[in-house]
């Protein structure tokens, strides 16, 4: 009764919202897990849910271009996360370890443009949660206290989570690993990790021969290392390049695929990510 209909564009935002709305309502999500904004064709129910949602959260027009027109027609407030004040945003090519300048980016996320994977930094998640709590309070003043309490609880849990993660990841910073998709800069910056290289996976622009030669060299130099792919994509490039090298393949998931939305969902996302990372890196 009187539950605020809150809709987010992607799963991680839904998980954050679930923490804030805990006990009062269930936030919904627009895109199915793994759907890429590129190939997503809208269904009437999608439009309807965007229209009918009282609150709508999306990353923003840099990331979800296909939503621009739909959001435009909404009556209620739509919050573009990338425009929130105080959020720590990263841009591709903004800062780097020395050296490998040109080879560092995968092609979906070109230098100079916004790195949209901002939810992988807990402080950003907290800011988003606070904004959600504030919006919900306005929309649903009756449950003001509940939202505030949830928000505070989320903050406290995040602090503990942060400690757990730091502990878990401590000592792994010198391990070498490669990722397919430059999605982890926020997470890495927070926890002192650095990937040794990026494979290019999907996307129309493939890497050039020079890039691949360098990658191969780096793989050889790196010694034992982990290569993380995102299910179900498993580009053949990595198998070709890592042939006869002491490379361990593992999977990693920045989107929280398969996590049921509940109060601790967001933490589960980060913990799983950490488990996946450390699980492989520890064995090196």
């Amino acid at each position, binding site marked *: 009764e009187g539950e605020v209909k809150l809709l987010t564009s992607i799963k991680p935002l839904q998980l954050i919202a679930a923490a804030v709305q805990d006990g009062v309502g269930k936030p919904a999500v627009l895109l199915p897990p793994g759907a890429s904004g*590129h*190939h997503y*064709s*809208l*269904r*009437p*129910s*999608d*439009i*309807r849910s965007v*229209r009918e949602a009282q609150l709508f959260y999306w990353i923003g027009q840099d990331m979800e*271009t*296909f939503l621009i*027109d*739909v959001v*435009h*027609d909404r009556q209620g407030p739509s919050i573009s996360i990338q425009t929130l004040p105080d959020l720590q945003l990263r841009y*591709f*090519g903004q800062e780097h370890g020395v050296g490998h300048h*040109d080879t560092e*980016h995968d092609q979906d*996320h*070109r*230098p*100079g*443009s916004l790195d949209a994977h901002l939810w992988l930094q807990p402080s950003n998640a907290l800011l988003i949660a606070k904004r959600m709590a504030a919006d919900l309070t306005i929309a649903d003043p009756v449950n003001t206290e509940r939202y505030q309490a949830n928000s505070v609880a989320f903050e406290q849990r995040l602090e503990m989570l942060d400690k757990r993660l730091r502990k878990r990841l401590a000592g792994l910073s010198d391990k070498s690993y490669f990722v397919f998709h430059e999605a982890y800069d926020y997470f890495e910056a927070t926890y002192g990790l650095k990937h040794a290289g990026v494979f290019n996976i999907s996307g*129309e*622009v*493939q890497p*050039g021969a020079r890039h691949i030669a360098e990658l191969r060299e780096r793989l050889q130099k790196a010694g034992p290392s982990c290569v993380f792919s995102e299910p179900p994509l498993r580009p053949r490039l990595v198998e070709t390049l890592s042939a006869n090298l002491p490379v361990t393949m593992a999977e990693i998931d920045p989107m929280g695929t398969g996590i049921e939305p509940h109060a601790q969902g967001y933490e589960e996302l980060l913990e799983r990510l950490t488990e996946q990372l450390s699980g492989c890196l520890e064995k090196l």
Partner: protein
Amino acid sequence: MPDFLLNALLAGLALAVVAGPLGSFVVWRRMAYFGDTLSHSALLGVALGLLLGVSPTLAVTVGCVLLAVLLVALQQQRLLASDTLLGILAHSTLSLGLVTLSFMRDVRVDLMGYLFGDLLAVSSEDLAWIIGGSALVLTLLVVLWRPLLAITVHEELARVEGLPVATIRLALMLLIAVVIAVAMKIVGVLLITSLLIIPAAAARRHARSPEQMAIGASLLGMLAVCAGLSLSWYQDTPAGPSIVVGAAVFFLCSALLPRFRSSPASATR
């Protein structure tokens, strides 16, 4: 009916109407892949637009027009069929676009965003554009109908009979190119090319004159739009693909149905 569905319906119907006659020419002139070629070349347009600091939409539209002109020029040689030429242009421009982009390290291009619109996201402003544009294109088609037919039936005969063949052909190409370029951005390339060719092909078997085929294609296209949007509404499927599936079903029916009596038989080559 919610307004977004109404917008989608009206936009779809307007496009279907103009796609009937235009698509008939596409089928007759073997340019089924013109739309795909334009969409492939859009990437090059975007890349060059970024390089020259022009708005991408403008660059893409200009690119489409240039491509149409290039195609007309290549067709003059007559050694290669239109589909081969379209295939070459499509893949060359796409590749050139990809190579160009690989030199421009500090821009991010959302390739698909430029190509795939969505019928359900059509705004009222878009709708006004589509309806106005369709009316304009239809008027042009009606005015140019006879010369267009004449050059399509036999170009040399038309030339001897004093028609400015090159001009008319270019006009047709540009008309098709502009319709595709604009519709591509609003409703997506998949839907517009399908609306061009599938209803026209379905109408072919039962038409006895070019006009019947053009009008039949318009009607079939409109039916497909209605059927597809119903499917989308009741089964919650994506709108554009549902319309295409609807049109494909009509095509299948038309291919399996016995032909109307005394309609033109297949030519025996």
